[in-house]
């Protein structure tokens, strides 16, 4: 559970998705998704592998286009934006990939400097260095600045991935399976980091996961997804105080097995 009370502005929606559909050939991945994320809120999308969770955030980030429905992010309809406007929006929407997706030919420092320098023409090297150090300190990995991604552990790669996203100071964070493949201690560290990012940088987030501990630790709102549809949403206690077989099965698998 969170050690702080997040400042959620319920009157301001930063993400507003309505009736979203997406198919890949005959594979119908999303079948009518409706979701709102309010300013300062962490929304966890829970579901088994292959239910379309990652597709959902890739549509929000503009990496995929929806077949139908509206995807409104920070007041803009993502699929209707020009390339230049989409680029502008992406500066405000950070995406943390499942495996970090670090540029493996660059050091950690260069990984962070790359998006910053590219998106801030004329920025001075001193300033870049300062921002890299501050951001790496925020994720607790200041000492890795000169290391190559291949020298980092799975958890460190994810943290650096988060740092690379944070360096652009986004308003929204999208986390794709942040704790997948990590040991329980590192999972807790990542969960704490997600909360810390929310507290310190005042971000709104969507966290895609199938890990209930992560959902419980970081989620202000939980949404359960099955076969491309949302089947239940609310706080963690609201979602899991139910007799619904699917939800209970999910809970039992995570906490009892």
């Amino acid at each position: 559970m969170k050690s702080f009370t997040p400042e959620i502005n319920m009157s301001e929606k930063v993400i507003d998705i309505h009736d979203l559909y997406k198919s890949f050939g005959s594979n119908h991945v999303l079948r009518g998704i409706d979701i709102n994320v309010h300013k300062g809120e962490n929304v966890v999308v829970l579901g088994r592998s292959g239910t379309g969770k990652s597709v959902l955030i890739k549509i929000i980030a503009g990496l995929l286009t929806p077949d139908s429905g509206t995807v409104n992010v920070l007041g803009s309809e993502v699929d209707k934006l020009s390339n230049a406007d989409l680029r502008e929006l992406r500066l405000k929407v950070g995406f943390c990939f499942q495996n970090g997706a670090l540029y493996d030919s660059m050091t950690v420092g260069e990984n962070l400097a790359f998006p910053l320098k590219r998106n801030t023409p004329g920025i001075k090297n001193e300033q870049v260095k300062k921002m890299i150090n501050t951001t790496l300190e925020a994720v607790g990995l200041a000492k890795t600045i000169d290391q190559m991604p291949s020298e980092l552990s799975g958890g460190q790669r994810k943290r650096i991935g988060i740092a690379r996203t944070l360096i652009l100071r986004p308003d929204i964070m999208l986390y794709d399976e942040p704790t997948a493949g990590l040991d329980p201690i590192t999972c807790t560290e990542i969960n704490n980091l997600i909360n810390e990012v929310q507290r310190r940088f005042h971000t709104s987030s969507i966290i895609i996961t199938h890990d209930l501990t992560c959902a419980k630790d970081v989620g202000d709102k939980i949404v359960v997804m099955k076969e491309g549809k949302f089947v239940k949403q609310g706080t963690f206690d609201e979602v899991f105080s139910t007799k619904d077989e699917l939800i209970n099965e999910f809970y039992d698998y995570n906490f009892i097995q």
Partner: protein
Amino acid sequence: MDSNIEQPEKPVISKGIDGFFKDINNICRFIIRIFVEAFKRPVEIREVIRQCYQVGYKSLALITMTGFITGLVFTKQSRPSLSEFGATSWLPSLIAIAVIRALAPLVTALICAGKVGSSIGAELASMRVTEQIDAMEVSAINPFKFLVTTRVLATTISIPILVAYTGLVGLLGSFLDIHLNEQTSFISFFQEAFKNISFLDFITTGVKAVVFGFTIGVVSCYQGYHATQGTQGVGKAANISVVISMFLIFIEEIFIVQIANSIR
């Protein structure tokens, strides 16, 4: 069935033929985009130079060895036939025509298709499957311009330079053999060698080099950039880059030679 769910399109002719035409369409769009991005700001000079270093400088050792041996061996192989007619004095001229008109561009392009094409194909494919390209996109960086346009520019610039270098090194290999056998001086070898080389030969070789360089860049970038199927896709992209590049190089060679001969 939900009415909002899009149904998969039925093939117009057959899946294979439709796919072929879709690929052609995609490649044309890919090439047009390369040209469009090349003239857009910011100009990625630094990345182009870095890629030229990767493509050009890092291929120098292999190119030097291959070019030198090609010139040397070709001279050795040609000598017996020419000496039968007492025409060994034609050797420099014959070798120069062969090296400058055909061997230098072809050997360089085939080596680069193998070395550079596979490396670009595998690098981009690995970036694709590990989501590094997506990561650039979501960081508001244009991955196409940064990764594809720069590499295609680099191969188009570097390979002509390598072709010129291969030609020179090939002639040096030839000179070594002729000097050892006929004690021909360096100056008289080159005077003799360039006697029958026309301006059109240089132009044709230059055009070939640019076309081959562009082909290698486009094919390998296209294969790498659109890689799928995880790590298996990386190997596949590298392999297909080499095979298609080599195939296209031979086809282009035939066309360019035909056009040059019709002008000559």
